[in-house]
């Protein structure tokens, strides 16, 4: 596994939750959005084990719905628990981001 994908692994779930919060999406749509944001090397299939995991944890819920482009698809939306998990993720991310950036830039301890 490349360094990049190892780094990504931990944050991908948070990204998926954030995308689903904006609007409910189906699997293919989700993978396209991740790529549009620049995460090109997330292999498309890797979102499905994550989606199953998030579903199992009760953070998202899948629903078979008619899609504008044809037959029924499974659309995911955030549950209440998922909203909270996303909030927690954002808080955690913020608390890591600033110190990590500071360290990487070679700054001094404040």
């Amino acid at each position: 596994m490349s360094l990049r994908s190892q780094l990504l692994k931990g944050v991908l779930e948070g990204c998926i939750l954030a995308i689903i919060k904006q609007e409910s999406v189906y699997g293919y749509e989700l993978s396209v959005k991740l790529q549009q944001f620049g995460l090109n090397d997330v292999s498309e299939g890797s979102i499905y084990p994550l989606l199953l995991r998030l579903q199992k944890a009760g953070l998202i819920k899948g629903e078979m719905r008619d899609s504008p482009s044809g037959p029924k698809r499974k659309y995911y939306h955030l549950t209440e628990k998922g909203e909270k998990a996303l909030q927690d993720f954002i808080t955690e991310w913020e608390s890591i981001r600033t110190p990590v950036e500071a360290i990487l830039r070679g700054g001094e301890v404040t």
Partner: protein
Amino acid sequence: MNAKDLIALNNEKRKQLNEHNRNYYEDMLVYIRSHLLLSEQQSEELLMELLDHLLEAQKHGKSAEDVFGKDPKAYCDELIGQLPKEKRRNIYAFIGYLMIQLFALITLATGAVELVAELFTDVDDTVYLGKEFVLFVIDFAVILLVVAIIVLWIRKSTFRDDSNTFNNKVKTFLVVWFVFFIVFGMFILMERLVPEFGYRIEAGGMVRILFGLFVLAMTWLLNKKFRITK
């Protein structure tokens, strides 16, 4: 959509895959479905999602490997690890349903054989309920065991390129017949080995057929009411 509808739709949609992608996808499908204890509904929803995704990717000129990676077995194992198990209640209901249905079919079949035999000879109509019960339990256990072995065998042979060679087909054919004879022989042996005991009744061919039909109708009603097979 319930599992049955999803399976039907999957069969239909799968035809749109090109040969390469279809081979790749069908291996995944067989492998995931061979895990019988997983929630059928969730498994079929996932299989449909994967198929939809692959169809979309195919339109954009991608192959199954581009989407799901070069190691489909490892990928499927990862998915299976996250899929919820079927509810115990559903599993028991399904096994019970199969048992009753098998019982009805055996009663019908023996009834029909007897009805024909009665035309030519004097048939002994005596049935010992104790013996019949023991035989039935043994037969059912053997059938379940054989099914389990077949499913495990199918699971083991997916994702292998050599499963379609002539040698393998001959081997499969021989093994299947061997198992068939062993099982059939066992049924006959058990019929002789289990002693006659328990409540004794007289049930001729017609009685058995009517009783078998009655039980079959009951399973049909139960299935309709509780949607055991969805």
